[in-house]
């Protein structure tokens, strides 16, 4: 259908977006790779020199590196586990006939629209604060000792906050997928005497697998970059108890001004994210052909 003229017009219309995105990707990434091989500290301008893989050696032997890697994986896996399991449960629940379903859905997805700094501060101060927080008041009401969440379980507390923010996303995606569940198949299975558990395991779960995979992959991309929640609650502490790779790189480059080291860490984060991205791209690419 395309005429020669429209093909040329099409290419002209496409090129600004492609060109800008290409520059946006290649220039900073090239600079990061370049910096990662330099001894380069913003506090000592003019002393840059090539050091080979020294920054990478430093980064991998930094005492904070392994905790940061473990914390990153714990955060990502913890949030994924909570949101996927909770999301499936909520999607199934919301799919049942009920009164006021529209309002229930609005309430459930609300946390997704709260900006990360707000949700982190609200949870940190008003809910989890060991003296003035609501949880402390509840604990005292029950005659229990209030928990100092961010001192005793900093990473778990951050996981709780981030999971609260992402549960709506998982629920919404899985709920949308539920809508395309084959109802006749469900009814047929029920007629044949299949119980709700059997139907859930053999019909609902397989149907939701694809959407669940998408949830896992997309959330992973975003969760690897969780930042504000850590910055306003624990600042990575106590010690390195809640430092993630993203936060470690932030500290090295923005607080210690060690551009070389931070860049090496940035490249490590890029490689980590790419491993996830390959799987995601394959899934979405398959869908594009369909």
């Amino acid at each position, binding site marked *: 259908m395309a005429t020669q003229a429209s093909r040329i017009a099409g290419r002209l219309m496409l090129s*600004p977006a492609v060109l800008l995105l290409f520059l946006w990707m290649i220039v900073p990434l090239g600079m990061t790779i370049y910096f990662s091989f330099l001894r380069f500290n913003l506090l000592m301008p003019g002393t840059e020199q090539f050091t080979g893989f020294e920054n990478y050696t430093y980064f991998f032997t930094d005492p904070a590196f392994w905790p940061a890697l473990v914390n990153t994986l714990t955060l990502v896996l913890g949030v994924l586990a909570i949101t996927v399991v909770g999301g499936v449960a909520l999607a199934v629940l919301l799919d049942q006939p*009920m009164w006021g379903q529209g309002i229930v859905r609005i309430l459930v997805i609300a946390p*997704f629209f709260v900006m990360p700094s707000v949700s982190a501060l609200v949870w940190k101060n008003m809910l989890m604060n060991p003296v003035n927080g609501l949880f402390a008041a509840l604990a005292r009401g029950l005659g229990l000792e209030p928990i100092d969440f961010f001192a005793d379980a900093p990473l778990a507390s951050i996981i709780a906050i981030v999971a609260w923010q992402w549960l709506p*996303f998982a629920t919404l995606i899985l709920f949308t997928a539920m809508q395309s569940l084959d109802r006749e198949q469900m009814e047929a299975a029920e007629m044949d005497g299949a119980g709700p558990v059997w139907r859930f395991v053999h019909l609902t779960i397989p149907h939701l697998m694809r959407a669940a995979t998408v949830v896992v992959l*997309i959330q992973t991309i975003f969760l690897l970059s969780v930042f504000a929640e850590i910055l306003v609650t624990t600042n990575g502490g106590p010690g390195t108890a809640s430092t993630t790779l993203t936060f470690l790189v932030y500290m090295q480059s923005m607080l210690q001004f060690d551009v070389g080291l931070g860049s090496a860490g940035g490249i490590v984060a890029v490689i980590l*994210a*790419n491993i996830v991205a390959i799987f995601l791209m394959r899934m979405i690419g398959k869908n594009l052909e369909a």
Partner: protein
Amino acid sequence: MAREATKGHKAAVTFLAWGVALLIFFPILWTFLTSFKTEGEAINSHPSFLFFDWTLENYETVNQRSDYLAHFWNSVVISVGSTVLGLIIAVPAAWSMAFVPGKRTKDILMWMLSTKMLPAVGVLVPIYLLARDAGLLDTKTGLVIVLTMVNLPIIVWMLYTYFKEIPAEILEAARMDGATLSSEILYVLTPMAVPGIASTLLLNVILAWNESFWTLNLTAASAAPLTAFIASYSSPEGLFYAKLSAASTMAIAPIMILGWFSQKQLVRGLTFGAVK
């Protein structure tokens, strides 16, 4: 489904669903309620749910700090600015990929998506240094540019999935009737594309409004949007719950209302069309 549709079952589901929903919504509700309390009431060790002396003084105080409005305005400029700029770049690109697909269209789409997979922290240092050297650090212009580029792949993808749904036959019919390329775009395509563009705009304003990596790292004071302004409340800890709540309520209310209208688009936009 006869058995499941019984009144008792429905009542039980309703009860359970409302309970869970209110639990999930509770932190937001609590913030909203606390914003109407006095500071003393807000940290009362026997917190009151509804029966306290409602006051608007927190909103007055937060608004009197004229910088609140400045930060609010920064958020508006940055989120709307980056979205509009992104649309200007993305609409032609998505249009051409949807209606004049070439051999490499799929590859280009996938490549655009892959740029979104780049973790922000991997390019933090260069972007920071480039912004500094260009004098764009802590400016709205700098953030508009950065957020435009950050969200451009999502904008292109969303528009592409919407444009894809416009039947190509309509364009052919218009062409048969002698419509030129420009009138084709203006009179045939645009009216059909407007809902998709509006949805994209809505979702992208939400994403840009809440973006909290670049806005926190590239601003200090003058261009700081609400994300950064609220984050600054983390230092005088424990003293200003009611004012924190009022500021938070004002920061999230506009976007939450927009968000409720964009549930469907959210799914499509954030899954790059993989779930519809």
